């Protein structure tokens, strides 16, 4: 960024390291049982980094299998169709649960939230520690499914019965699916504990003067996300309990009579409804989409304001639209079930409510653009990724109202159009927000170091182009009728043959996109060890996480985003904790 910083102590006394740990909280090391939110944040961050690397490898294997089904990969062999399905399940599950639910909320929430509200610690540090280690346990159980006999579950991250409820239905449907259910149940408990912690911290831990309407938008988004987590993960837990019961205790919640698997009739079940699972799952699943993206929205608002040196355009509108999205998110689960055979009246209601979500979403987009307009923009890497977020959010969001039309969705539902939609908005947009947050809060994540700007720019442009090149063509595949979840398209279905070149292009783009992440990993490791020192407030931001903790009383006197020239100094920003500004006569 290169702007001078007035008050940055440098050298031997890095300011953020000065926020030392209370003794009972344990060590600084990332590999220890520590109750300090900053250490836990780093642990969550590394966990999601591990998950995302596995997820990327799985997606590349899938892309290879689609275009070259006969390919023998060195040290690995040929990918079998059932392996493809197992990789698809694991890719989806790891990315949705262990990356998109963990990194934005738990990693950066823990890192920044308690400091942004001046709480100095989470409400329940030991509970926080317990949440992390439980999440890690869930992760290990999930990944172990890839290595058991039969391989991972084949029924997708949504685990629709009857496929998921019958243990004999496929190679991964035995132990692989059991491990999936157990892992998700553990993950639910960990997420609920974490959500309780977040909400309590926001409600009870704010310093004097930090009223709700003075909280940074990041805090608001973590707060709303935690509420969504609290209300949705319990339902998933209930649904998973019933699924486990169907699989092992002989009940028929989801299993109807007359099922035939591999030519053999399935005995002992009758009267259940697979739709019941879909209702319960998507009552969780749709809020989960917002759990992934809402923190990204908060981070983007924060970055755009900080780097255009302007207050957030329409702060209250941002807060209310965040709440509106959170509330509406619980009312639209049926739009995942338009082709599942639900009542047309229900379809009408779900379709209308889904389109209503476009309103608060548009409020946010317009306010982001309004924040940028007329600002003195500093084109640093976090800003680039945030603008990338807005771009991807618009691109991916526009296909949302399209898919909300039941008649159009009939055609597009099981095609690549949906794959393109959710990878754009939930996958890539959220990941861009994670990147922005990583570059921005790196001095807190790895004390007092900055990431390299040049590498960051290269990373941004390659990722941005790679993301569009990978996921944009999928819209056209979907419009051309290419179904999802097919392990090969070059088989007997001749009408898909002519789409093969597009798939080739996507596969190559995916490899470029993955390769670009090596720049990020290198930058991360290099900067953590020997990045340049950040100083106290490297981005000249206004919020409390950049405040040096002198152990003194902290009081908030200002709104979160106060930018503008001051007469008493050359600064153009006023930190939230500064005393009320007095003009010289």
């Amino acid at each position, binding site marked *: 960024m290169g702007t001078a910083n007035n008050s940055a102590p440098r050298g031997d006394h890095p300011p953020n390291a000065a926020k030392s740990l209370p003794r009972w909280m344990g060590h600084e090391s990332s590999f220890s049982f520590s109750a300090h939110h900053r250490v836990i944040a780093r642990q969550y961050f590394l966990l999601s980094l591990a998950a995302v690397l596995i997820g990327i490898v799985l997606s590349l294997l899938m892309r290879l299998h689609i275009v070259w089904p006969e390919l023998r990969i060195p040290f690995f062999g040929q990918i079998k169709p059932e392996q493809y399905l197992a990789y698809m399940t694991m890719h989806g599950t790891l990315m949705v649960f262990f990356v998109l639910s963990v990194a934005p909320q738990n990693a950066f929430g823990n890192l920044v939230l308690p400091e942004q509200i001046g709480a100095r610690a989470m409400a329940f540090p030991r509970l926080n520690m317990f949440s992390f280690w439980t999440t890690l346990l869930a992760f290990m159980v999930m990944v172990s499914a890839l290595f058991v006999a039969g391989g991972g579950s084949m029924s997708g991250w949504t685990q629709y019965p009857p496929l998921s409820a019958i243990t004999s239905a496929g190679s991964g449907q035995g132990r692989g699916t059991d491990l999936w259910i157990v892992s998700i149940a553990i993950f639910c408990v960990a997420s609920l504990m974490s959500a309780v912690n977040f909400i309590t911290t926001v409600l009870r831990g*704010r310093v004097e*003067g930090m009223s709700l309407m003075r909280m940074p938008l990041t805090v608001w988004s973590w707060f709303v996300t935690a509420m969504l987590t*609290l209300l949705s993960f319990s339902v998933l837990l*209930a649904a998973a309990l*019933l699924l486990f019961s169907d699989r092992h205790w002989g009940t028929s919640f989801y299993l109807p009579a007359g099922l035939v698997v591999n030519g053999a009739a399935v005995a002992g079940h009758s009267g259940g*409804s697979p739709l019941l699972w879909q209702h319960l799952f998507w009552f969780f699943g749709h809020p989960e989409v917002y759990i992934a993206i809402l923190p990204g929205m908060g981070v983007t608002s924060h970055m755009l304001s900080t780097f255009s040196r302007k207050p957030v355009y329409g702060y209250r509108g941002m807060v209310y639209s965040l709440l509106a999205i959170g509330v509406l998110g619980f009312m639209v689960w049926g739009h995942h079930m338009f082709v599942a055979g639900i009542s047309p009246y229900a379809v009408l209601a779900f379709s209308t409510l889904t389109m209503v979500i476009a309103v608060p979403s548009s409020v946010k987009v317009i306010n982001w653009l309004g924040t940028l307009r007329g600002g003195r923009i500093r084109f640093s890497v976090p800003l680039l990724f945030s603008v990338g977020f807005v771009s991807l959010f618009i691109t991916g969001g526009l296909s949302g109202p399209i898919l909300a039309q039941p008649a159009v969705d009939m055609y597009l539902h099981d095609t690549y159009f949906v794959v393109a939609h959710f990878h754009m908005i939930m996958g890539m947009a959220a990941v861009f927000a994670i990147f922005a947050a990583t570059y921005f809060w790196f001095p807190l994540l790895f004390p007092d170091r900055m990431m390299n700007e040049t590498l960051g720019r290269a990373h941004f442009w390659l990722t941005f182009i790679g993301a569009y090149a990978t996921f944009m063509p999928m819209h056209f595949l979907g419009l051309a009728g290419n179904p999802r979840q097919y392990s090969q398209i070059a088989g007997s279905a001749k009408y898909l043959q002519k789409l093969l070149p597009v798939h080739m292009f996507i596969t190559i783009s995916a490899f470029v996109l993955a390769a670009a992440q090596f720049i990020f990993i290198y930058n991360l490791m290099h900067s953590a060890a020997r990045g340049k020192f950040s100083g106290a407030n490297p981005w000249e931001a206004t919020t409390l996480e950049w405040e040096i903790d002198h152990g003194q009383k902290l009081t908030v006197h200002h709104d979160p985003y*106060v930018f503008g020239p001051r007469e008493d100094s050359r600064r153009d920003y006023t930190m939230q904790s500064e005393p009320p500004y007095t*003009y010289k006569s």
Partner: protein
Amino acid sequence: MPKPAVLPPHTTHAEPKIGGRGPKPPASVGLGGDDWKNNPPGRRGPRERLKRFRVALGLVLISVFVLFIGLTSAYVVRQGGGTLDTTTGVFTRDWKPIAVPQILWLNTLLLLLSSATIEFARRQVFREPMVTEEWLGLGTPTRRASLPWLGLTLVLGFGFLVGQFVAWQQLNAQGIFMATNPSSSFFFILTGAHALHLLGGIIVLTWAALASVLSRPLESRQIATDCGAWYWHAMGVLWLYIFALLLFVK
């Protein structure tokens, strides 16, 4: 950028338009008006930690109730389930209500009694004269007053769990198992899930009793007893709800 007008000294004033709505007197958060605010969070008032635990407890209870709301919706949906014979076009429902074991009435009574006893225990740890006495270091009267009630609650709670177990055994003896009928599946799932949650309450109350025995600080004992008691009440309400569901929504 328009320059602000020149103002008299020492006047706080709205900042230039670009800078938000300007300073206002700090709004008091949490404990209005007392003088504990120089302390870090967690030490800003005599009851701050207690209030924080109560907020967390409320959130935990929300998630527990949502779990059972999810199960309830599955219960209602499953009641309409059945098999459609495609040759005749006849739809046969397969839900056959089970007779709820009579011992559940006794269990309900035990749980309601235990709710009363835990309330006595909860009130004992907050009684002003005793708390003052402990605070002055003159003894531990709250411990002596609350422990018997805590112990009685634990006994009654275990009695409830044993009663539930007997109810399951009675159903099994009648040939009704988990997979017999959707109604029996839900009976075992709902009562089992409730029993597990009650077990959680027993663990918290055991911890509260242990905290008394081990002479933990009064604040810790208050928090453990208070939150354990409210959780226990909530589990009682939850049981009444489940029992009503099993009795009336057949």
